């Protein structure tokens, strides 16, 4: 990654960045005020990632940046130059790399446990759950609930979401 200071970029000049999104390297020109969420949805047609509150309160926009879960609505794309981004569209291939089937185990578990109703929060819940399992700090049911509290589900599917995550954790299927 280039670390030398960039000269001030006037407000209307797009900046060149490189992102690897779901394994695909992309050279992009972005204005500095473009959030990662808007870049994914509006420019790259990766509309799986959802815009809920757009203020970091609901978790619907959760993606993995270099393997770490973050709110893409509170992330400027230009600040992630060089990063690897995984969205819900890329979770299945994370599973495939581990020799799993077409879906990531957490996706299979969400279906198995009926862990959603309307589905709007689901991409964020899935990415957050994968990030949480990678972090490895949550083990008990109570700890999972606490670690997933950044993802709001207005349908109230929480019980089944925790069931699905527990199932995958007990399978050792976290990626």
């Amino acid at each position, binding site marked *: 990654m280039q670390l030398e200071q960039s000269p001030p970029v006037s407000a209307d000049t797009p900046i060149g960045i490189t992102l690897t999104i779901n394994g695909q390297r992309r050279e992009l020109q972005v204005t500095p005020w473009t959030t990662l969420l808007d870049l994914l949805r509006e420019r790259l047609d990766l509309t799986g990632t959802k815009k809920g509150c757009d203020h970091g309160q609901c978790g619907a926009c959760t993606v993995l940046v270099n393997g770490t879960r973050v709110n893409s609505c509170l992330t*400027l794309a230009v600040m992630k130059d060089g990063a690897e981004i995984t969205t819900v569209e890329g979770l299945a291939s994370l599973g495939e790399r581990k020799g799993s089937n077409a879906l990531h185990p957490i996706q299979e578990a969400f279906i198995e446990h009926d862990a959603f109703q309307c589905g709007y929060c689901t991409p964020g819940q899935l990415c957050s759950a994968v990030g949480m399992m990678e972090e490895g700090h949550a083990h008990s049911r109570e700890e999972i609930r606490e670690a997933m509290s950044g993802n709001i589900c207005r349908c109230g599917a929480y019980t089944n979401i925790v069931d699905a995550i527990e199932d995958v954790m007990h399978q050792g299927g976290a990626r």
Partner: protein
Amino acid sequence: MNRFEYVRAGTVAEAVGAFGAGARFIAGGTNLLDLMKYEVEKPGRLIDITHLPLKGIEEANGGLRLGALATNANVAYDSRVAERYPLLRNAILAGASAQLRNAATTGGNLLQRTRCYYFYDAGTPCNKREPGSGCPAIGGVNRIHAIFGTSDQCIATHPSDMCIALSALEATVQVSGPDGERSIPFAEFHRLPGNEPQKDTNLKPGEIIVAVDLPEQGFSRNYTYLKLRDRLSYAFALVSVAAALDLDGDTIKTARLALGGVAHKPWRNIQAEAELAGKPATRETFAKVADMIVAEAKPQSENGFKIELARRAIVRGLEQAAAGTPQSLSDKRIQ
């Protein structure tokens, strides 16, 4: 969000040099970008400091030096922090969500703005946002507002959990700016609103936080971070208590007590802490000190409940610390 210039700094000197009127430093961005979306902040230039070499957590002077860019998650899950400063770990993990803690930084946490509804609503007056425009929170919707150290211009609270622990631990903030480097004791970093509520901290323009130093004494045996809020996770404190005791048997040698959610800065009462020294660690001792602290509280129209809540939280927090049974992060029942 407004349009702005973007500068990526590679060194602290470059970052400081790029500062000017209307500029803001950005690291995690979890608060600044939120404020920009509400047009509370409209910077003409953002200086990206995420490439500065300030991410480390290192041994320093018998304590730990937390780099300003160490994320909340990296600090909370650092094994040295967990062993030697579990009060700090617990306070960090009581705040925000995992996603936010993965992005938010140590320096940025200190610079969080208040969550006062009126400050966030650019359509209303606010002395913090627009000095001299008035404070609709006084006499308005103020259930979440301050009960200590308010002024007739501002009753906002400081929102951080981490800072309440840093206050109790007597951390030191290391800054670098146009006039060089300096150290700011934590108690002098944040301000009360007074006549200049627009100033949250004593940082000078262009100064950047480079590290937060934790002193050797971490109170790792007798501590708690007790956070009381409207829902059990992912909510700001109505009242929180960071309590830390150094005990000799049942006698208190040193006590530290900082309150969150009740003032424009982490609230400490040094006289009350001194009152605890040499006393037996009993409920009677704690109740007396709690009464002494809340005697200074001043309610607003909707937040009088916080006074009794704070009184009880102080007693319970000191009991938890004395017993060596810190508040659980996942089991939210208060023992």
